[in-house]
């Protein structure tokens, strides 16, 4: 077998050294009744590299890749162009096949990269400190809610109705088991988020207020008032950013008063990958909260010769030291995705990120204007970055979800319907989220408009 270097002669010699007459002697502690006598039935035997590749390619070809269609899906996962050098670098064996930098003297590559990553994320978010990554945006969001409970010693989290519903679900799932109370609310498809309603739900028991920025309908709004209202009641403001490219164009959540900023980093460097692996980002505005953060942190120090170097630090927060008293059970995070993010962000730089953001915004504005001209389409979101909500008022009971499916059959990936995101809310049936990035062309936009026009006619 191509991945197994031992020969039968090696195996014989080694068994002799360990004093075993056969390999079965080494499995004597497995109860005889449970020991398997041959390969597990119902599974195929080994295959050649070529055969495996053929087998997997057949499955890959059954999917419609985003690059092969006019593509407008977003809602927490965005398609962006990733420069070729990003993938080349993350495939270097020294990065790809390393593990958590437990031995810092031979892991400075990963550690320095993480230090750069933490700095990039902190600056993008307008925060003092970012950690070395979490699994994804949704789990980072829950970890932030849990952290707010530790900081404030209160347990009622108030969730905006415009938070990604899957994030809300993750928070509610975890809260069932920790005793936190989650106050969420149904979404409403309006041009402006219900800021007054959200503020009215904050009380003295509130540990945190969780808002998405831009929100699930793509709306961009000032977080300062919510921040102020939360702080007045002794609660933290948690801002969730599912599209980090937006922060090349709009003010950072930290500047607007968010205490914890979390989000999805997938947009930068990582790719769509049918939902994972993604990259959870986690940062705090004020250094005083560092010791309550979950996850790994990389810090600067020096070696015995006075040379600058990096190590994992403040690990007394973590499970391998604190066990049941840890701030989180997280161990493995998203190291390689963090590398992809950092390399892509380095290629972009401040200038490239700003240009990329404005190009997204420009194309999204073109798409919104073009779709507004389609009879039976009403653009709802007024202030947005690269994603907006429309109502298919001309759908006449078919529902946006079915229209998305029908357009997919015609080779147009039109967007994410709110019915897919919010089952059990028939009032949202005609709403559709449309994301437009630099990968969308004006021809793609025209194709979407044309397909919708045909469908709604």
């Amino acid at each position, binding site marked *: 077998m191509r*991945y197994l270097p*031992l020969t039968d002669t090696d195996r014989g010699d*080694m068994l002799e050294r360990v004093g*075993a007459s056969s390999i079965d002697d*080494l499995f*004597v502690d*497995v109860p005889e009744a449970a020991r398997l006598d041959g*390969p597990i039935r119902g599974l*195929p035997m080994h295959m050649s590299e070529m055969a495996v590749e053929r087998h*997997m*390619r*057949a*499955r890959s070809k059954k*999917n419609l*890749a*985003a690059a092969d269609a006019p593509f407008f899906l977003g809602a927490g996962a965005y398609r962006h162009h990733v420069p070729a050098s990003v993938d080349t*670098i993350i495939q*270097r064996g*020294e990065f*790809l*096949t390393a*593990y958590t930098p437990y*031995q810092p003297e*031979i*892991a*400075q590559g990963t550690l320095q990269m993480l*230090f*750069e990553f933490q700095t990039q994320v902190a*600056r993008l978010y307008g925060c003092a400190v970012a950690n070395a990554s979490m699994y*994804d945006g949704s789990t980072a969001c829950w970890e932030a809610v849990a952290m707010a409970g530790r900081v404030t010693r209160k347990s009622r989290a108030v969730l905006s109705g415009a938070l990604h519903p*899957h994030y809300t679900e*993750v928070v*509610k799932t975890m809260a*069932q088991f*920790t005793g936190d109370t989650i106050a969420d609310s149904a979404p409403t498809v309006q041009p402006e988020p219900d800021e007054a309603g959200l503020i009215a739900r904050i009380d003295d028991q509130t540990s945190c207020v969780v808002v998405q920025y831009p929100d699930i309908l793509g*709306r*961009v709004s000032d977080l300062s008032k919510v921040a102020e209202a939360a702080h007045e009641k002794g609660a933290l403001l948690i801002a969730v950013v599912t599209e980090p490219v937006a*922060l090349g*164009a*709009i003010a950072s959540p930290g500047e607007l008063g968010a205490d914890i900023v979390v989000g999805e980093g997938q947009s930068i460097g990582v790719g769509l*990958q*049918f*939902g*994972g692996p993604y990259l959870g980002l986690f940062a705090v505005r004020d250094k005083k909260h560092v010791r309550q953060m979950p996850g790994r942190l*990389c810090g*600067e*120090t020096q070696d015995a*010769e006075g040379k600058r170097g990096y190590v994992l630090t403040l690990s007394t927060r973590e499970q391998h030291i*604190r066990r049941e008293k*840890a701030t989180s*059970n997280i*161990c*493995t995070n998203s190291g390689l995705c963090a590398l992809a993010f*950092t*390399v892509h962000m380095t*290629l972009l*730089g401040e200038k*490239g990120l700003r240009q990329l953001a404005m190009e997204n915004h420009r194309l999204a504005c073109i798409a919104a204007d073009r779709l507004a001209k389609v009879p039976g389409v009403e653009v709802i979101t007024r202030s947005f970055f690269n994603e907006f909500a429309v109502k298919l008022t001309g759908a006449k009971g078919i529902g946006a979800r079915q229209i998305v499916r029908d357009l*997919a059959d015609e080779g147009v*990936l039109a967007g994410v319907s709110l019915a897919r995101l919010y089952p059990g809310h028939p009032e949202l049936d005609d709403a559709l989220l449309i994301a437009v990035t630099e990968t969308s062309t004006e021809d793609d936009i025209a194709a979407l408009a044309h397909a919708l026009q045909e469908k709604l006619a």
Partner: protein
Amino acid sequence: MNAPNKSGWKPAMTPDNGASAGTGTLTGNRALMLEEPLLFEIGHAETTGVDLELVEAELPNRLGGMERKGSIGLVGLTEPETVRHYTRLSRQNYGIDLGFFPLGSCTMKHNPRLNEKVARMPGFADVHPMAPASTAQGALQVVYELGDWLKKLTGMPAVAMSPKAGAHGELCGILAIRAALTARGDAREVVLCPESAHGTNPATAAFAGYRVEDIPATPEGRVDVDALKARLGPDVAAVMITNPNTCGLFERDFKVIADAVHEAGGFVYCDGANFNAIVGKVRPGDLGVDAMHINLHKTFSTPHGGGGPGSGPVVLSEALAAYAPLPFVRKTGDLYELVEEEDAAAAETSFGRMTAFHGQMGMFTRALTYMLSHGADGLKQVSEDAVLNANYILRSLEDLLHAPYADSGPCMHEALFGDKDFGNGLTTLDLAKALIDEGYHPMTVYFPLVVHGAMLVEPTETESKATIDQFISAFRSVAQRALDGDESMKHAPYYAPRRRLDETQAARKPVLAWEGDRET
């Protein structure tokens, strides 16, 4: 690869690494060992390595008055500078591709490159998680087929694919247990874990609202069955046991324990971190397991990537299957669909959603590729070779190094040693750093906690006998120096990109981001 030292040349080991013997370099570089500044010290705000097709038109602005004012504080590099910066950094890392990486409990096996190629096929890499099911049948099929492999390899009836890593999988298993108990109106409060457990086990149980109590161990390094049985009762929700355990031993009474736990109304969680030792040899489902996570990045060869991403699917028993998290993939006839919250029957019993989407697809494609490559026959050979390599190391070192459980039977896929009789106050850490100078990534150190100065060596099956023989020679050499009290080891490593790093200073005055351009 790792040819024996045929030339016989040996570098001198002096505290100043020979610098006093010659002239220092102007750059601080040492030929192929190149120093590299931080990105922020070499990049510029106005530099970019990407060129977009920018339009010379007046840009629209519908940002609602929220435009960013002032600098973000990011810097960029051109493409050649970027490639060089990260290539130089990469060379300061140790990886499996470079050499032997016997990090116990982490299963640092070779990462096949076919896996990487397959994961990048556009039908997997460039598909949106909420793409209509009709356009993602092949992707859903991969999730389903990988789940089917995991069920068959473990002999379990159900699997949850969405957990993002091992610890997330543990949480999934414990939450399913908690949901099952709640469903029968049973408010149990305690989870039992052995002292030798991974730190994630007690952290997970505590996160799920349980009180954690230790399970005592016998002197031979296994769970004390009588003591465990005595502790069982109506307050115990679950036991979490790693099998093979972190002392490298198979828990031979696992089935007896599981039966007793079930008898007392509790559930059995098995930490599957060490599944590589037994895949194809015994099915956890035949031992009474209710839930077990599988680290695809350990047993099934997906890359560790410098600390993730992992992937932690959880196999579940019949008793827990209904409580599995959403979403999951269902096959009806030839069609695959994603079952989400709108499926009332599934939503009714599921404990909920653990992550925004449906799991680590990029790891699923890699793991399935690996499984297909090995097949059922190859996977059995994998565990046999992994176990043989570990026993070979154990028996080649036990005469020299303290091996606390050497008499407890064969080890499984890892061999455990302690620091007993080291001279002159030398520690396991000193030995590990000396191994770095010999060109190895050290074993796991100071874990499990039950052995003083623990050294947990996991060779995996992807190493040749020549590599292992050379490692044994090197390990014996540094172990002998430790026993002899060779004080030079206290200053190792000498030849790594950095000498020993000051972790105390890092924690006392944390510097967690570059602030070289900011007023302090």
